[in-house]
């Protein structure tokens, strides 16, 4: 190919980055796992790439929070839109009315529930730190002659599960209280949204409860700590998100009623 052609080509081809070959630019330089990868394979073979698995699971969780957030944002947007909407007055059939009825939320009960969830978020964090510490110390235990003193094994997981279940029961009681006050799911648009938001949050939290219950059972069975560390770690972060989300929903329902 002639030199002239290349010269011409150069005007139409992007500059080709011909560098001295090197590897490992930036963030991409991570080796894929050699053993025990595939974060959710549920296997725990004490693989050396344990940190990578944890990081991957955390990344997966962070990504998973985006659609959950979008889900709630879309319902909140619908709430705001519906609140400002004028609807046809079926009595006069000529004019429009604003038919938004503020829901009388059982404030005291919801505050208690929020306190329960706040406490459970703290205990979830304690469980996360406990399991991190156990995982870090696990290799030392196998060394003969090394004693780590008395095991501090306060059942943070069980406490978290209990508090979380308490919150869900409290939410159920809040629904009953709403029903006592005459607000059913289909009573008005406002009550529909209250039930929808609390139920959607409750279902998400129940998912976390089930996962932590699994982790608590695994810890009772004296399985190695690696078997539950990632699960506990990721669920604790999820739990904190669920707590923040609940505070957001509660504040929204209270101040935007």
């Amino acid at each position, binding site marked *: 190919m002639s030199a002239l052609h*290349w010269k*011409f*080509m150069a005007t*139409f*081809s*992007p500059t*080709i*980055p*011909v*560098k*001295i*070959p*090197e*590897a*490992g*630019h*930036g*963030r*991409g*330089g*991570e*080796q*894929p*796992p*050699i*053993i*025990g*990868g*595939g*974060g*959710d*394979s549920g296997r725990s073979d004490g693989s050396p790439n344990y940190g990578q698995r944890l*990081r*991957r699971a955390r*990344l*997966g969780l962070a*990504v*998973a929070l*985006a*659609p959950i*957030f*979008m*889900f709630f944002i*879309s*319902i909140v*947007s*619908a709430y705001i*839109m*519906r609140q400002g*909407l004028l*609807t*046809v007055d*079926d009595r006069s059939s000529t004019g429009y009315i604003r*038919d938004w009825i503020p829901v009388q939320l059982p404030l005291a009960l919801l505050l208690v529930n929020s306190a329960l969830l706040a406490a459970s978020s703290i205990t979830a964090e304690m469980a996360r730190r406990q399991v991190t510490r156990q995982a870090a110390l696990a290799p030392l235990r196998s060394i003969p002659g090394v004693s780590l003193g008395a095991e501090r094994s306060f059942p943070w997981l069980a406490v978290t599960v209990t508090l979380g279940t308490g919150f869900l029961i409290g939410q159920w009681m809040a629904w009953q209280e709403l029903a006592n006050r005459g607000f059913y*799911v*289909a009573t008005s*648009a406002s009550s*529909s949204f209250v039930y*929808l938001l609390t139920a*959607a949050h409750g279902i998400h939290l129940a998912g976390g409860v089930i996962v932590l219950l699994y982790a608590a059972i695994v810890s009772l069975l004296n399985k190695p700590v690696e078997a539950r560390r990632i699960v506990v770690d990721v669920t604790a972060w999820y739990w904190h998100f669920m707590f923040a989300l609940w505070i957001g929903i509660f504040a929204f329902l209270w101040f935007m009623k």
Partner: protein
Amino acid sequence: MVAQDAHAHAAPQGFIRKYVFSLDHKVIGVQYYFLALVAVFVGMALSLLMRVHMIWPTAVLPIFGEIKPETYLQLLTMHGTIMVFFVLTTAPQSGFGNYFLPIQIGAPDMAFPVLNMLSFWTTFVAFIVMLSAFFAVGGAPLHGWTGYAPLSALTNSGPGEQLGADLWITSIAIFCIASLMGALNFITTILDLRAKGMTMMRMPLTCWAWFITAILGLLAFGVLLSAGILLLLDRNVGTSFYVPLVVVNGQVMAHKGGSPLLWQHLFWFFGHPEVYIAILPGMGVASQILSTFSRKPIFGYKAMVYAIMAIGILGFVVWGHHMFMSGMSPYSAFAFSIMTMAIGVPSAIKTFNWLGTLYKGKIRFQSPMLYAIGFVSLFVSGGLSGPFLAQPVLDIPLHDTAFVVGHFHLIMGVAAIFGMFAGTAYWFPKMFGRMMNESLGRIHFVMTLIGTYCIFMPMHYLGMAGQPRRYSQFTEVAYLHKLMPLNTFITYAAIVTIAAQFIFVINLFWSMFKGPKASDNPWEATTLEWTTATPPPHDNFGGHTPVVYHGPYEYSVPGAPKDYIMQTDPAGVTAH
């Protein structure tokens, strides 16, 4: 056994674990592909019935009988839904993406293999639930693939709006969850599992397209899920999210105060990104193939990446252009109109760069290249009518006409399908270890390209002449009489084009078993999937992990010994 130990999970032995509930992303990719293949034939059969009904409205068809107006609407609904969800969303992203994304970035599998298997089987369940709507009491729903309320929100608004509509919504909700799991896996895999040296800006454009598509899916499907849940509540619990005070058959419904517009906003907030979910992977495949078969680097790699990102971002702020007819504020219509036309800029950048890649290239006109050029052609033809419809003053007269049908079928339907054809022809040797028949591929390409233009181009004229869409029967309408020959032509073109698809299927299955054996790199391409064996081993690279030294499109590099440099070639070039 080194290879197996090195993999995230050992190669399974039994048939069920190997081919049915497999954790291997390659098997899952093929599963998605064949699911979409089944779905596309179902969808195509429905479209054939519709076309036949449009020109012979009273014909009594064998097996199917006579098509009543409500049956026509059911066919329309199911055709749209199956095509959009189970074909356009499934094959390009989940099918090819699952198979080739991990290999192209040098990973042994997806980040979460179990989740990956779950996403496929959840999609499968969604498909079965969707098909079961045909057999529900009253038949399939008739509210269109967009499911506009209050038609979709009332159980007595028509045949098919009882159980059929509930199944339809449930299927879509299940599909949302499956897609969210898939998107989560794609994003984590790309961010966390790239091989050494595979920087983001060394990824093939296919990977970029799958990445941005996954982000779109991640943000859009959650919203569709919530919209679907509200719809189910309206239908079954008596809430009034979408249903205003409404009278059906002289009977006042219990609902009041809801907003049909709310459904449209939520649906199209998903629905417009969905258009790009369907087309972006095709753009990635086209870029890959145009570069490889022109033996030139892709023109403006960075511009291509930023254009994909720009399309992704803009795709989220234009949903209102589907709603110009809804009586929304003219000010917001204006804003949506401007944003929509702005999408023309990154789209034009991509088209310009594809043409720049072809310009003065040493083009190899093999079937993958033909399909990729077909993709560009259809993308341009279908895309050019976009700015027309983006303007409220033009959209309002054209919106409910065949013009829109022609527009979106060209760009979202057939262009994306050509992306799949291109992907199939390009990657078939790697997937099945054999070459597809080139002659059959060319015959299929020519017939399909000409056929689709014959079907969808005249629809633009029909639309401008005022032929409404969604109407089951207009042979009796006087002003449409003159258009009937054109409609007849379209139907014949559709029959021929559908027949041509059997050439593709025959080629696919025949080549799978009888095609000539493929080498590891039959197209002399540079990306990682061509460095491994054909078909790839269970852990993709046979026990070692590749190290990447080059960008993905180093063709005809001056001074290089060959006209292409593999991404994993440590030597690179000796001179220059």
